[in-house]
């Protein structure tokens, strides 16, 4: 399976994301923000970082980049798309996912090994996990506070579209401790913590993140 990882000006975790794809058994394909070309990939990862310097709002400029025109088109057709951290912000700005991410309520950049609960395995990126399982991923953000109006939050909870929730103290003020959400079809997932930093024992807090990439690859193999 070929999984594309987009590099925007200011992306930081594109190399780690490509590495995670290879660790999971996939072929990682580098995609460039300035091209209207997805190079025939089967899924797309939007990595973490500070694309376009986070100017205007996080993800606001990236959302209109040439590659995102294509990503939005294929996402609406059902291709698996995972947005991590800045990628999550881009997916919200693209209106592929509801809500928005604002500055952490404590106003500090947080960088921690974060405990999470996987709330839904009915997405293209979480099928490998048992629902309710607790995992540890790196969380590192300044603007990770997930917000949406009450009706949207109720809809997400009601439809089982909260993919992951923070455990313990809320690390960034996210409403209902939401760490990740999916679209209605489950092919588009946004996640504030970084699964690509948790794919091998030597570096990072373990291998809990590998399942995100393995999920997409297995789903593709079984399709």
């Amino acid at each position, binding site marked *: 399976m070929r999984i594309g990882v987009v590099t925007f000006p200011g992306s930081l975790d594109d190399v780690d994301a490509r590495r995670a794809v290879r660790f999971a058994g996939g072929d990682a394909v580098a995609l460039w923000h300035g091209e209207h070309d997805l190079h025939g990939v089967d899924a797309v990862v939007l990595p973490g970082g500070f694309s376009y310097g986070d100017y205007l709002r996080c993800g606001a400029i990236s959302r209109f980049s040439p590659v995102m025109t294509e990503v939005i088109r294929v996402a609406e057709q059902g291709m698996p798309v995972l947005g991590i951290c800045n990628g999550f912000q881009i997916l919200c700005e693209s209106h592929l996912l*509801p809500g*928005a991410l*604002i500055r952490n*309520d404590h106003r500090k950049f947080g960088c921690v090994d974060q405990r999470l609960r996987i709330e839904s395995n009915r997405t293209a990126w979480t099928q490998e996990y048992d629902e309710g399982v607790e995992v540890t991923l790196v969380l590192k953000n300044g603007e990770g506070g997930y917000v949406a109006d009450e009706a949207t939050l109720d809809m997400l909870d009601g439809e089982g579209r909260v993919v992951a929730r923070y455990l313990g103290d809320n690390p960034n003020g996210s409403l209902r401790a939401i760490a990740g959400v999916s679209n209605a079809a489950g092919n588009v997932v946004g996640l504030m913590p970084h699964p690509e930093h948790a794919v091998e024992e030597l570096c990072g807090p373990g291998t809990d993140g590998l399942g995100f990439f393995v999920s997409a690859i297995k789903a593709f193999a079984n399709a």
Partner: protein
Amino acid sequence: MARVVVDVMPKAEILDPQGKAVQGALPRLGFDGISDVRQGKRFELEVDGELTEERVAQVHRIAETLLSNPVIEDFVVHA
């Protein structure tokens, strides 16, 4: 040429950590009596030619498409 100003503010119900930080600094500087501060953005757009109704409508579309995120922000166009 005409200048159109667009003000973008966080919605009232959305937490504004930057505004809170500014408000928190005021008592330390000896400014009292300020019960809340909210921080927004001001955009100044230089519009070519005459400012027609069509142009103002275009600025509205710019404001809702790019300058603001309607999920968390409101905007006002001062034409």
